[in-house]
């Protein structure tokens, strides 16, 4: 087999991948044996993984080759829209669709974070260098998406659970912001705890994917670690900004202009 190296990394051919697929076949065989009904899922999943990643590979190769700022920005927007859709698809909001505020909160949280990392931390030249911008934004968006979804879900349930308290505040002449302060605080805490935990356990429980990849690619472990530290900080910031924007905008939906609690449409 051809194991020639390129930039320190062993070349992986389609033949090698065919050998790797034996491991999925093992998974399919085990699920058949145990009658899990997952064989079909594994087959479809494996095919989708191959097709999707191959397409992504071509797209990335195209972006790296063309190096046009507007194509890079377009790619970032597509990632943002896909993440917004994922974050809102499973959401059940009592006060109407939340796609717009989710998208806007993610745009603010991920945009500010990427701009800071790009312009201040890494000082990229050009600023849209796709080799950095696209993978970094992928990580930022993925985490911001989870933060936004958690924050929205928790705010919905806290507002329902505490509607008596919220109305008691309103009835005393409190602003909606004051009346919803406790639900907002709890929703934000729920959204941020994974970010805190992420910082706590990084390197202990799991070696992060980016660092692993860099080390595989032949980078020195020390440089890989410094990148990973930057990534951990970056993700904490992105999640915090996105969740806060999400909760503060979403909160307004629960109140009418006359500062009344919006009644949940009875199903």
């Amino acid at each position, binding site marked *: 087999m051809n194991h020639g190296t390129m930039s320190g990394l062993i070349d992986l051919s389609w033949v090698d991948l065919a050998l790797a697929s034996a491991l999925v076949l093992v998974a399919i065989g085990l699920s058949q044996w145990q009658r899990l009904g997952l064989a079909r899922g594994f087959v479809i999943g494996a095919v989708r993984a191959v097709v999707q990643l191959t397409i992504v590979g071509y797209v990335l190769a195209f972006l790296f080759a063309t190096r046009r700022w507007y194509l890079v920005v377009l790619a970032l927007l597509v990632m943002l829209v896909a993440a917004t859709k994922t974050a809102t698809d499973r959401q059940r909001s009592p006060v109407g669709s939340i796609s717009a505020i989710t998208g806007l909160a993610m745009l603010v949280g991920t945009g500010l974070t990427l701009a800071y990392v790009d312009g201040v931390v890494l000082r990229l030249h050009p600023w849209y260098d796709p080799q950095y911008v696209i993978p970094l934004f992928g990580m930022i968006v993925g985490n911001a998406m989870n933060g936004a979804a958690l924050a929205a879900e928790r705010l919905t349930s806290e507002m329902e659970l505490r509607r008596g*308290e919220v109305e*008691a505040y309103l*009835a005393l002449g409190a602003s909606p912001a*004051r009346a919803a302060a*406790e639900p907002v605080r709890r929703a934000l805490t729920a959204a941020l705890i994974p970010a805190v935990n992420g910082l706590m356990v990084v390197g202990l429980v799991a070696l992060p994917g980016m660092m692993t990849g860099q080390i595989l690619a032949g980078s020195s472990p020390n440089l890989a670690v410094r990148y990973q530290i930057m990534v951990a900080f970056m993700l904490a910031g992105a999640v915090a900004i996105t969740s806060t924007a999400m909760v503060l905008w979403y909160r307004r939906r629960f109140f009418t202009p006359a500062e009344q609690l919006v009644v949940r449409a009875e199903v």
Partner: protein
Amino acid sequence: MPSESAFTLRAVDQERAGRRTLSGVDLDLPRREVVALVGPSGAGKTSLIRLLNRLDDPVAGTIAFDGTAIDDVPIRELRRRVGFVFQTPVMFTGTVRSNLETAVALAANGRQLPDVAEGLRLAGLDDSFLNRDADRLSGGERQRVSLARALMTAPEVLLLDEPTSALDPEVAEQLMLTVRRLADDVGVTIIMVTHRLEEARSASTHLVLLEAGRVIESGRTSVMFSSPNEERTRGYLLGRDRLS
């Protein structure tokens, strides 16, 4: 001409979750009295008092507070002038004192407000309660704390939504004496929903009977119980009286 009525309602309709709860309500609720709203469950009593400090807005009709269209009064000012005590008292996290101080902080904009011990006394609790954890009080004590909390904004009107429904009869009776004293001594207009006719008879000076979202009759409590104009009033007040 200064308004004799605390609230004037004209042709008020209300809906909740797609269901009509009030239909064409015309009502004058007199100031400086204890007004009881009575009627069978589902009559629209709670729907009605929720309109009076705009926890909800009606789908049609007009409401005036103190002679002014209610939506012309700034909403937070209205809610400080018109307090609301809920059927199930909600305690804010912390001590009784912090519950009352929360209300003071919301209302304090140059107005003379009662101090917390005074508010507590008006609600019938002594100041040994100030440092108690609000979450550990009995149902009756919680209802008194929420009454005191509503008093901290020095309201002209207090709306009480079935304040005694979760209380034992003796505790309920004590609370009603307190409410009556508030009206007599402090001059607060009280508008309360109750399903206990005996309570309405003994504590209120003005009575409104609602049924299926409509006002059947409104008048002085003593007159309503002794010689009502409407046959249905007689049937409800005297027929149901034995049962409740």
